[in-house]
């Protein structure tokens, strides 16, 4: 086994310096539920691990500018226990709740879920439909990146050498808004999405959809944000005709693989079925959120 150096810097600047200076593969360590497992299974052999959990405020969840800022090291359980966040973004909570067991969520972060860049990551579609921005810090300064632009292909991200995500910004929520995420898995718990769909809607006082974002997980190399799906809902009361158009647009956007968890045909059809259910759930939540 090659030498491994472990560092737990006390500041973001030091974390960036360590990552920039790294010789050989380096990994950021937050919850470790992917990194440690991949080391254990000899899938990765990092020369440097940079634990970000000792950096002050990295685990904080705060209300900011009418929305929320979620620190990169906040665990899934901390996110699920934050009452205001649960009330404002139930669709994100739907996704986070599905990430592994209580034990795993006690450590796992949405940052790792995103940067592991699995197309089936459960928290990513609802973060995408929320319009979440990742605050990226690196040797050349800071930038805000829409979450959907972070993963580029399975296991790969758009982050450059020395860059890491410091936090996520969730925008202020207009009233009459609701979001939801559901996935299909053969088992109800402890499984990986075969298909995942997130929908985020805003309605007017009459219940007509004025804004929508729809994202599909596990049916393409990255999570897909599908404007055609949003177009099927905008201007409607999410009635049967709109749902039929949504399902067709969702199925049409899929570029799935065939594997042991689901065939291509199943994933394409399942995405349409799930999109309907999730849109209905998001609509109910938006109506209840007047």
């Amino acid at each position: 086994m090659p030498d491994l150096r472990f560092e737990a810097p006390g500041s973001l600047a030091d974390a960036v310096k360590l990552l920039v200076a790294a010789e050989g593969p380096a990994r950021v360590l937050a919850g470790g539920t992917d990194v440690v497992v991949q080391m254990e299974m000899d899938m990765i052999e990092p020369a440097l691990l940079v634990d970000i959990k000792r950096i002050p405020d990295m685990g904080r969840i705060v209300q900011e500018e009418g929305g929320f800022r979620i620190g990169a090291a906040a665990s899934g359980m901390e996110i699920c226990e934050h009452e205001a966040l649960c009330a404002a973004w139930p669709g994100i909570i739907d996704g986070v709740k599905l990430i592994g067991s209580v034990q795993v969520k006690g450590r796992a972060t949405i940052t790792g879920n995103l940067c592991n860049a699995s197309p089936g990551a459960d928290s990513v579609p609802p973060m995408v439909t929320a319009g979440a921005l990742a605050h990226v810090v690196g040797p050349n300064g800071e930038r805000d990146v829409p979450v959907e632009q972070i993963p580029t292909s399975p296991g790969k991200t758009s982050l450059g050498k020395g860059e890491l995500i410091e936090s996520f910004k969730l925008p202020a929520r207009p009233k009459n808004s609701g979001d939801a995420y559901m996935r299909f898995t053969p088992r109800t718990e402890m499984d990986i999405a075969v298909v995942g769909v997130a929908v985020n809607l805003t309605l007017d006082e009459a219940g007509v959809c004025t804004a929508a974002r729809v994202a599909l997980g596990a049916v393409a190399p990255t999570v897909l944000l599908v404007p055609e799906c949003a177009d099927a809902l905008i201007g409607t009361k999410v009635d049967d005709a709109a749902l039929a158009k949504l399902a067709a647009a969702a199925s049409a956007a899929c570029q799935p693989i065939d594997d042991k968890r689901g065939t291509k045909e199943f994933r394409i059809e399942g995405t349409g079925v799930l999109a309907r259910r999730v849109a209905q759930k998001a609509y109910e939540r938006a109506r209840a959120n007047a």
Partner: protein
Amino acid sequence: MSKKYHVSLTVNGDEYECLAEPQMTLLDVLRDELKLTGTKEGCATGDCGACSVMVDGRLTCSCLVLAPEAEGRSVETIEGMAKDGELHPLQQKFLEMNGLQCGICTPGILVAAKALLDRKPDADEMEIRYWLAGNLCRCTGYDKIIRAVMAAGEEMKGA
């Protein structure tokens, strides 16, 4: 050979120190360095829950925590569950109601169940089943485990 890291941590209220390579996990530290072998290794990849412990009050798979990450942390394991020779209500109910067979998953299930009942002694069957979804048992078929946890919850509520 990687550099070794000095790790000091509290386990069940007692302070410990050891030297650990960074690839070592908290589970390795507990079992091999501190000789606290009550915590079991099952899958070593966070799927089975046999290595469940509390880290700073949070239910965690100790196989997913690297040894240097445990620096300064407070850990609770199965060895700390019985107090002064008296079994915890969960341990007592598992014995009385046959909540175990081979016993490998038992320490992890007890630690996980205690984490739930400490915050919610009146958790219902559905909540208990979902909470324990990360603890696999190959023997019991789970039903006796769930009944024992519910009975312990009843007792803890009354206490």
